[in-house]
């Protein structure tokens, strides 16, 4: 079974880490939704530098968190997208839709 977490390291600073796949996806979805709803920060930054490996599930998580942030009226940016996620995003035409920050 793969391991993964999403945590708020400082106000508005979210970090995804571990392996994003079909086994870890459902729980990450719930944890992320709770964090975004509970965060007091106006804008949110999601750091993906600690993601070890990701399938399409990782991209679906990013989209879900973008919807959460929009619903909560908060801005969300995404940083340090790993190569495997970038490749999947490219093939599925998502690169232009993700709020990526260098």
């Amino acid at each position, binding site marked *: 079974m793969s391991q993964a977490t999403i945590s708020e390291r400082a106000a508005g600073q979210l970090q995804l880490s571990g392996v994003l796949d*079909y086994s870890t*996806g*459902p729980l990450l*979805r719930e944890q992320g939704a709770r964090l975004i709803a509970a965060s007091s920060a106006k804008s949110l930054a999601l750091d993906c530098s600690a993601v070890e490996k990701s*399938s*399409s*599930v990782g*991209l*679906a*998580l990013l*989209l*879900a968190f*973008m*919807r959460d942030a*929009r619903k909560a009226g908060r801005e969300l940016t995404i940083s340090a997208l790993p190569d495997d996620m970038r*490749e*999947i995003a*490219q*093939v*599925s*035409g*998502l690169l232009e*839709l993700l709020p990526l920050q260098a």
Partner: protein
Amino acid sequence: MSAEHEYAIELQGVSFQRGARSIFDKVDIRIPRGKVTGIMGPSGCGKTTLLRLIAAELRPSAGDVRVDGVSLPKLSRDELFDMRKQMGVLFQSGALFTDLDVFENVAFPLRVHTKLPEEMIRDIVLMKLQAVGLRGALDLMPDELSGGMKRRVALARAIALDPQILLYDEPFVGQDPIAMGVLVRLIRLLNDALGITSVVVSHDLAETASIADYIYVVGDAQVLGQGTPAELMESDNPRIRQFMKGIPDGPVPFHFPALDYREDLLGRG
């Protein structure tokens, strides 16, 4: 999957008999990781049987089939089930569920094999359909699709679970030139961008030669020849001597008309 094994798939001394007839007799085939490998030969030479041996739907009469160094004939039923999840298969017929629409056809493996919430299943289905250019066709039924579109939907379904290995059984049969060009482009794109190991079983020389990094020609229960398409073009063997150019992409757009992608995924902003 580990990257230790240079070959994603290895057949070692594989024999397969059907009744008294020998379909394969001590065949050795090695499929390099991350490449497109063509398996070619005349109809009825056992190419589909070969795919079924790799997918562990059939057991060899003798010899070994290894995927990532793991011997398939030795695996338990549960282990085989897990192994198959890492392999996507595009069947010759397309084999879509005729009573399910395009969306549900692609969602099917996600519903069977994962516990993802509905919104994430939708994201992944839209991503896969976008990749094959058919997101706009999501609520069509299979009988409303052209042959080429059916095959692209089947491809979206085959990659729904992000397989490491994709097996294509005669992907070009019955396709018009534009559909063939689209398929060739997609197979190559998925292979290169996602690091997938692709095995294309086909008797269409031109398309397979245009896409494959390496080709095995099988016939008479043997491997008749192997090499890069360029090497095979020099071959004296009459069965493998004639290769043609692949048909390029035409003016027909790749994407079926669709809603705005951003809105479709994220809602109206």
